[in-house]
């Protein structure tokens, strides 16, 4: 009951400021542009033989996976900001006055953001599939929307986005400074991790480690990604292992954050 009330409150918090739809809007634009653009490149010009040869049957999922491979940064930001804004605007004071059991508050936030991340996943997939399927269709390529594999992929993508938002909550608890959290999210997802993944794929032993990077684990969970397509030699986890890695990162970061920042004096 108490937990349900905490989730109710967190949902209201999320929906009562502009952040969620502004982020969602940018995500839709970004994902649709990438998916539509790459669909045009692979679908229209891939046949000339200069680009990487990707079998036509794999192309739709690769295009649709832009929902997660470029879109995952948005649920992470949403999750991180949901926590850091409490510190930034000192709203932890009324939050903890309304619910002094801090584990209940953080648990409620984690579940709420998991659900919000899933919603972001649905929105991002609508963007990537909408733009991607339209462009592929225009080039006469079957987007395979009726295939069970496609729908399993959609389900795993939604789960991945939900887990990314939960990771954001953990990150926000670990790094309560809003500016620092945003810089870390952007630097890690856009720069550090892509480099690490390419670097890790060079040797066998580093590839074994590299598959546990969150982005790799996410791609393993989703089952298709532009990254895995351009470095096909790298090893990858099973989809469920990828999911467990993401969930473990989210839980461990949140638990450590609880002890380092969430439990501290609020003054």
């Amino acid at each position: 009951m108490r937990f349900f009330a905490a989730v109710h409150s967190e949902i209201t918090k999320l929906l009562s400021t502009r952040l969620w739809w502004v982020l969602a809007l940018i995500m839709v634009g970004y994902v649709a542009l990438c998916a539509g653009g790459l669909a045009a490149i692979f679908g229209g010009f891939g046949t000339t033989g200069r680009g990487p040869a990707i079998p036509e049957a794999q192309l739709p999922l690769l295009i649709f996976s832009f929902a997660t491979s470029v879109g995952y940064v948005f649920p992470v930001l949403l999750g991180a900001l949901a926590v850091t804004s409490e510190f930034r605007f000192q709203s932890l004071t009324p939050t903890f006055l309304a619910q002094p059991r801090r584990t209940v508050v953080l648990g409620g936030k984690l579940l709420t953001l998991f659900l919000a991340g899933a919603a972001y996943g649905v929105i991002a997939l609508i963007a990537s599939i909408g733009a991607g399927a339209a462009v592929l269709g225009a080039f006469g390529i079957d987007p395979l929307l009726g295939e069970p594999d496609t729908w399993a992929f959609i389900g795993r993508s939604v789960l991945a986005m939900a887990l990314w938002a939960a990771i954001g909550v953990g990150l926000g608890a670990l790094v309560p400074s809003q500016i620092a959290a945003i810089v870390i999210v952007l630097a890690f997802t856009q720069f550090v991790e892509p480099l690490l993944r390419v670097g890790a794929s060079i040797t066998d032993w580093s590839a074994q480690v590299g598959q546990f990077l969150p982005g790799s684990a996410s791609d393993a969970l989703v089952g298709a990604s532009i990254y895995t397509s351009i470095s096909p030699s790298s090893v990858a986890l099973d989809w469920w292992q990828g999911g467990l890695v993401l969930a473990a990162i989210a839980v461990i970061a949140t638990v450590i954050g609880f002890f380092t920042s969430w439990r501290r004096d609020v003054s």
Partner: protein
Amino acid sequence: MPTGVPIEFARLTKSFGNVDAVSDLTLTVEPGQVTGFLGPNGAGKTTTLRMLLGLVQPSSGTATFGGTPYARLASPLATVGASLEAASFHPGRSAHNHLAVYAQAAGLPKTAPAAALEKVGLADYGSRRVGGYSLGMRQRLGLAFALLGDPAVLVLDEPINGLDPEGIKWIRLLLRAMAAEGRTVLISSHLLSEVQQTVDDVIIISHGKLVHRGELSSLDVSDSKQVQVNADDRERLAEVIHAAGYTVSNLRSGILVDNAEAAEIGRLAFDAGIAVTALSQKRTGLEESFLTLVGEEGSL
């Protein structure tokens, strides 16, 4: 009607490193009256209140509501209403949603936010983003948060700060009414003059220690009573009063007489045939004894 429970501090202490922000505070705040919690800025008032509300962990000692710590209260917002000095608002959220967030977390009725906004006179501004609120409106919103659960205990940190004169009068009446209903009302301030018309009882702390506890009138122990007097022929008036054995000093608007009663000075002037144009007893007792208690440097 909720009945107030006493607020009890027992040997409450908070140290930051080697510095004791609050040390060994033991006292009880009774229901049915307004208690002023006074002290200069940095005296430890806010830290004490935050410990009481479970936001700051005491180094030792306890702070409870009738024996129950805040975190163990069955329904905290419906038992204790608190508003703390820091502006704890997300600027992009409307006032109504701000209150709804916490009403939902505390399991309060859906009508609670609108009712609280109505009580503090913000009913017409509920849909506005808090970022556009004036300081006075934010104070009222903080109070609305405190009143959300119709609590029997009110704990308000500097509630008068930032209010306009009309707002000050309004909050005075509200707090007096709440206390008259039997609720426990504890308000902090760094200015005695700000709350002296509101409180029955005062607690004064300085450097984290309790320096005075008692009724407001117990502060009025100053023996330096002064009279301010004026006349058209100010020099002659000063001579007459001086001749009677008083110490006088010149003010811009008259003469200040130390250790005097207004009645006595008036009679002196009358006997000398001087028409007095102003005559008043200076009531500096409260503020002065407050400053003496907290130390002169503490007034900042």
